């Protein structure tokens, strides 16, 4: 090959490369990757994501005329507590906050199960568990389902006398109490009765149950998920203590202050580094009669760090129940006020991470003006 031929070939190649490259100068958008721990903040899914139509709008399951108290999914099913309207209801308790449900004005709560509609919504709710034992009183509520690796369903629940446990051979099977069902009863000298159980199962931490106890949140540990032992939330003191979850001080003098916390919902989630934390969401009752959701996280399940951030919007959000779905996204089930027929009730909604995209029905085209 002579130098002249090489030169011609090289120049031709260079011209092709330069010409091609000069067309590549497309101006792109700013790279804006949203990377979150999945711990919040959350957004509420809408009716196009739930594929559920009706009132209240954007609720994930419709139970006409009923009041809900809490709900959480397991597998393709949603377990929740609801109560039918009582036609001869007593007067509303005047001490309750405006957005609170007066469950004395409803029939006793029972636990229902609805199945997934393939979107983010649930359909065909049916009653699957009702109060029968003496310790339960006349209502069962606050269900927390745990699916074991062999497919067995464990359903922790609350009743008037404490926390109980029922099992089914599968998530859609018939629930039977374990013994008389009673797992945790009166726990302290103050006759405080535990409620609102939430359970996480971990190879390292064991089975941990968080529950509400007298305006605080406590934790118990178990090896088998049946027999639980209280864990001291603050070993530095001689007495038994609930979890230490101090509120951040108000930013301004006229900001509402925190009165109490309750109704925990827990999940174990892994971050990008592989570190696993227990994430605990809970109700926060404020002095201005609003309710919001707090968040804390822990490596050992006992020593928690609390977040000062707002996790979800709304002044009546409560009963948080987190799960991690098959894609690794955190889904947070919450209830919010839903006033119908001049009666304060609550409906069940789903919140997901602000960057989480769920399958969605096409939204209708806006009608032209005029």
């Amino acid at each position, binding site marked *: 090959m002579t130098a002249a031929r090489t030169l011609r070939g090289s120049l031709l190649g260079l011209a092709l*490369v330069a010409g091609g490259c000069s067309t*590549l100068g497309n101006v792109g958008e700013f790279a804006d990757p949203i990377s979150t721990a999945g*711990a919040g903040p959350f957004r509420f899914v809408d009716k196009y994501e739930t594929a559920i139509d009706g009132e209240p709008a954007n609720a994930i399951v419709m139970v006409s005329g009923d009041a809900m108290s809490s709900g959480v999914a397991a597998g393709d099913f949603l377990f929740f507590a609801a109560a039918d309207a009582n036609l001869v209801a007593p007067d509303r308790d005047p001490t309750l906050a405006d957005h609170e449900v007066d469950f004395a004005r409803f029939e006793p709560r029972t636990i229902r199960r609805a199945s997934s509609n393939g979107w983010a919504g649930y359909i065909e709710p049916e009653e699957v568990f009702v109060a029968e034992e003496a310790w339960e009183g006349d209502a069962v509520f606050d269900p927390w389902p745990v699916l074991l690796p062999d497919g067995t369903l464990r359903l922790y629940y609350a009743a008037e006398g404490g926390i109980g446990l029922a099992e089914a051979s599968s998530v859609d099977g018939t629930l039977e109490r374990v013994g008389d069902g009673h797992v945790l009863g009166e726990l302290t000298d103050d006759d405080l009765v535990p409620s609102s159980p939430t359970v996480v199962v971990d190879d390292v931490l064991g089975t941990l149950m968080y529950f509400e106890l007298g305006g605080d949140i406590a934790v118990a540990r178990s090896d088998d998920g049946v027999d639980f032992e209280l864990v001291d939330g603050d070993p530095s003191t001689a007495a038994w203590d609930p979890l230490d979850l101090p509120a951040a001080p108000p930013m*301004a003098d006229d900001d509402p202050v925190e009165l109490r916390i309750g109704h925990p919902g827990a999940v174990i989630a892994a971050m990008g580094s*592989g570190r696993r934390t227990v994430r605990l969401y809970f109700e926060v009752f404020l002095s201005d009669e609003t309710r919001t959701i707090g968040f804390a996280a822990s490596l050992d399940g006992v020593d928690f760090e609390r977040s000062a951030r707002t996790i979800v919007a709304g002044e009546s959000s409560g009963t948080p129940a987190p799960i991690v779905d098959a894609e690794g996204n955190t889904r947070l089930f919450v209830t919010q006020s839903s006033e119908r027929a001049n009666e304060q009730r609550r409906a069940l909604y789903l919140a997901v991470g602000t960057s989480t995209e769920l399958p969605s029905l096409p939204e209708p085209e806006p009608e032209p003006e005029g």
Partner: protein
Amino acid sequence: MMRRIAIALATFSAALGLSATAAASPPDTLGLGSRSIAMGGAVVADVQDFGSVYYNPAGLARDNRLQVNAGYLRLHSFLQINDDDSDVEPLGASTFGIVASHSLGRVDLAFGLAVLLNDQRIARTRTAILDRPRWELYDTRDHKVYLSPAVGLRPFRWLHIGGGITFQSPATLQLDVRGSLDPFDSSDTRFEHRFRGNLVSVRYPQAGIQIDPNDDWSIGASYRGSYTIDTITLAGADLDIALSPGAPTLAQLQLAIASASLSTFGPQQATVGFAFHPSAAFRIGADVVWVDWSKHGSLISDEEISIEIIGNLPGIDIPSEIRGRDPIPLGLRDRWIPRVGGEGRLIANDGLQLFLRGGYAYERTPFPTQTGVTNFVDGDRHVLSSGLGLVFDQLEPGLDGELRLDAHLVWGFLPDRVHEKLSLVDPVGDYVAGGNQLAFGVNVTVVFE
């Protein structure tokens, strides 16, 4: 020899004294000139093409011929955070350069100019959002125009010195809004606004020296000053609130936002290196670069916000305290970057020479792991480079000189780096960041005798 070194140090010091203020620039990531890039950038001791303007202005006076250069280069970043593509935009740029020399008695004097024109935009800037992780060194800061003139001198056959300045542009943006606001009927609301932008150049100096103790060895050193590009945004609104145009003013709303952010900081850099070139067919070199990253200011903007309503507007309560934001120290550390590279001539016949080149650099990240509220992602970078060069030197009568064609291919590898947050409730949480980069480019240089 000691006398030579003393003279060299004195002239280098004098060159530094001429320097003004100063620079991270697109060439810090991309390099400049395919030949130098292919050799890992380890050329401070003997660079002599238009890339001298960036690597060491002293090299401009090495070759007393006129050189004209044009090229194109691209950088594609395939970077991930938690295995999700970070969508770092590819970067493409055209390069142009010229080196012209003249002899004044026994002293050779050369002028060089290097331009790197981003083919997407003149400049790009944005402030940082705390909870949005971004690849700080590759996301925005390389999207700039690079323009640098320099001069080189060869007072003795064994000594080369040079200096120059590089231009960059910051921005001051101001938005003023005034008018009247009807809170009950938006159709009666009237606004007018004025926007002012001011792009002012900043300059930073560079200087260098090359010494040839003998025909086989060269040693060199260069210095680049630091520069800071700030973006200052001022927004103000002065609104009369009334029920309708012409109606008495109910109240006056005054809003002022002042945001001062550091867009880009270029750290001062000093490089020393050597080159061994026993013949025209073989050359190796090694550099060490000190980068003064620890002087990097905060990339979190300093914001002040004030809202005031003068008068009585029932139902509207402005909090007594509205938070702005304070800068957060980044905690960067100075870094030493080793570079090695070389070339060998494979073919030399009939006016054609073919060179094969290779190089390596290890750039340890100056950014600490992001354990706090900031999320400026970066990682150590291994840079493997390679390239080919063709030289045609028998082109008369068409060209009395040489035609050089150079191409380079670079692979950058950023191993996964774990960022573990101190706070368990951090909204971003822990993440793992890493990836690969691919850069390539071509250059054509015409050398006139």
